[in-house]
């Protein structure tokens, strides 16, 4: 008994000491409680140097929290508990947040750098006047292949993935809309198709791909491709950029017949408490130099036209990440479909995954 009590007290003392040390360490950084900006962004989705620069320029203290899926972020914003001043959802999530009244209108007159954005990437279907969102990065869905095993001509079109020669060698991204979307395209439909029979046919088509599928994964697809674990992957351009910078045998293709174009956007949640700071940050990120620095660090495509000239020429002319007008014309942005349809997509995709 005595021993138990001694240990009990011992642990409490240790906790107190650690808390004390921790408090001391943070005492300097949290001094300016009032000038705070709470950012909620994807993990590893900003150059940390930019946060430091922003803090120095404006005197705000940035509290940076991360999430790993739109839906997880949505849940936390909906429930409250923390009032985030700025979040970075993807296109269809922006649409859903607008519908549920979770985001505040953005006054563009307060954003002196707004005109730097490429007009091609503004006023899209998910937020027709950009009343609520400002694009942060954009990208596409495509095919990554390893030139040690696969010739470029073998993977120019989605249909070619069904080639029996690729048995057990394709990695798919674990996402119902993207994967069924590919099957829809091969059957001549759009990626926002809601028709039940079309979707059912797309699932049948996708099931025929199963023998070629090695795994259905998420973020870790990068690591696998870097290590030559698979010959081909279906993934997003940003992910592709990251793998290619590491493994020079990898290449990225956006099939010309069509694919998805996605946007991650800065929004201000209705519950935000530091709106002035949020505006300051959005404007800061829209400045051409900062946008270019961020794009170079993360490797995703920037929607900032003025930033392009600050990027290395190799990046500017990179057709893989800044595709030609004619390819862009075939790309589709996801719409936030009715919940019933989304449920249908998910059930069909689950059925596909279980069909090994």
């Amino acid at each position, binding site marked *: 008994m005595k021993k*138990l009590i001694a240990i009990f007290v011992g642990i409490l003392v240790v906790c107190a000491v650690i808390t004390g040390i921790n408090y001391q360490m943070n005492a300097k950084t949290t001094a300016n409680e009032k000038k705070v900006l709470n950012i909620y962004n994807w993990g590893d989705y900003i150059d940390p140097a930019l946060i430091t620069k922003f803090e120095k320029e404006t005197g705000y203290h940035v509290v940076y929290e991360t999430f790993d899926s739109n839906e997880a972020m949505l849940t936390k914003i909906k429930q*409250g*508990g923390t009032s985030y001043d700025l979040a970075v959802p993807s296109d269809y999530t922006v649409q859903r947040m607008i519908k549920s009244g979770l985001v505040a209108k953005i006054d563009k007159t307060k954003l002196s750098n707004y005109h730097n954005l490429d007009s091609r990437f503004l006023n899209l279907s998910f937020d027709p006047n950009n009343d609520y969102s400002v694009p942060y990065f954009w990208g596409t869905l495509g095919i990554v292949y390893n030139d040690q095993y696969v010739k470029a001509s073998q993977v120019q079109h989605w249909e070619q993935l069904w080639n029996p020669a690729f048995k057990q060698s394709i990695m798919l991204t674990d996402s119902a809309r993207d994967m069924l979307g590919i099957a829809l395209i091969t059957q001549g439909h759009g990626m926002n198709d809601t028709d039940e029979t079309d979707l059912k046919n797309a699932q049948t088509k996708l099931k025929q791909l199963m023998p070629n599928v090695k795994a259905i994964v998420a973020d870790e697809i990068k690591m696998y491709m870097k290590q030559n674990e698979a010959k081909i992957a279906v993934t997003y351009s940003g992910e592709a950029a990251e793998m290619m910078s590491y493994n020079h045998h990898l290449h990225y293709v956006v099939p010309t017949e069509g694919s998805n174009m996605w946007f991650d956007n800065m929004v201000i949640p209705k519950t935000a408490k530091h709106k002035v700071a949020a505006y300051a940050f959005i404007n800061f990120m829209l400045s051409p130099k900062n946008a270019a620095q961020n794009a170079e660090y993360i490797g995703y495509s920037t929607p900032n036209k003025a930033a392009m000239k600050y990027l290395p020429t190799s990046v500017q002319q990179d057709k893989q990440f800044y595709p030609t007008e004619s390819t862009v014309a075939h790309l589709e942005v996801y719409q936030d479909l009715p919940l019933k349809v989304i449920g249908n997509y998910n059930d069909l995709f689950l059925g596909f995954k279980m069909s090994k």
Partner: protein
Amino acid sequence: MKSKLKLSNLYLTLVFVIIYLPIAYLIFYSFNTGDTMDRFTGFSMKHYATLLSDTRMISIVLNTVVIALLSALLATVIGTLGALWINQLKQRTMKNAVLSVNNVLMVSPDVIIGASFLILFSFLGFKLGFTSVLLSHIAFSIPIVVLMVLPKINEMPKTMLDAAYDLGATKWQTLSRVILPSITPGIFAGYFMAFTYSLDDFAVTFFVTGNGFSTLSIEIYSRARQGVDLEVNALSTLMFLVSLLLVVGYYLLEKYGHTRKINRNKMMKGPNAQ
């Protein structure tokens, strides 16, 4: 007899090798000059240097340790009391019912626990942060403590309690002098398991944290988007070495203190065994 002994040693060695293989792998790559875990390009301490200058990371580690130590402690206290209560329930059906309820959190996937705790906290108007994380960790650690302590209580001979009462011990005396000492191994086991659960938890913490409070697994998961950061390997190596030292140190202290007691214990055990 000798060959059998060797065989058993071989088996144990094999088990330990497998258990420590991934750890060794992580430690090995923490000294890599490169930034990934698939190619070792040369020895360097650079990831340790990055780690030591990363105050955010160090602060998060401290948070994590405090949460783990405290939540395990409180969960152990509550869980042990709960186990004692469950044990003295007379009706078998009642006992099984309580035990089943006890285990609900163990079977519920973390995501469900996390989401429902989040709803609970926002319903109660709780500010998310240290306290909400602490409470959640206590909550999901309690069942494992009960599961670890209960068998110990069950194994305690009834005669021992009767003897204590016969000798005129009060309830409190019986608890502190007889019951607690004999279930101490179970309590320790419970504490360690609770500690482990807390250190490892990602999903529950993700939902119930907020206002800038973060724990190690949250940080590791969000950094892992670009593949695992070797700074995290360096951190794990250090944490592993520290806990190894603590465990061995604790054990030596314990053993030293124990040898003195053994004689007394022998005398006590004699009459009980009859």
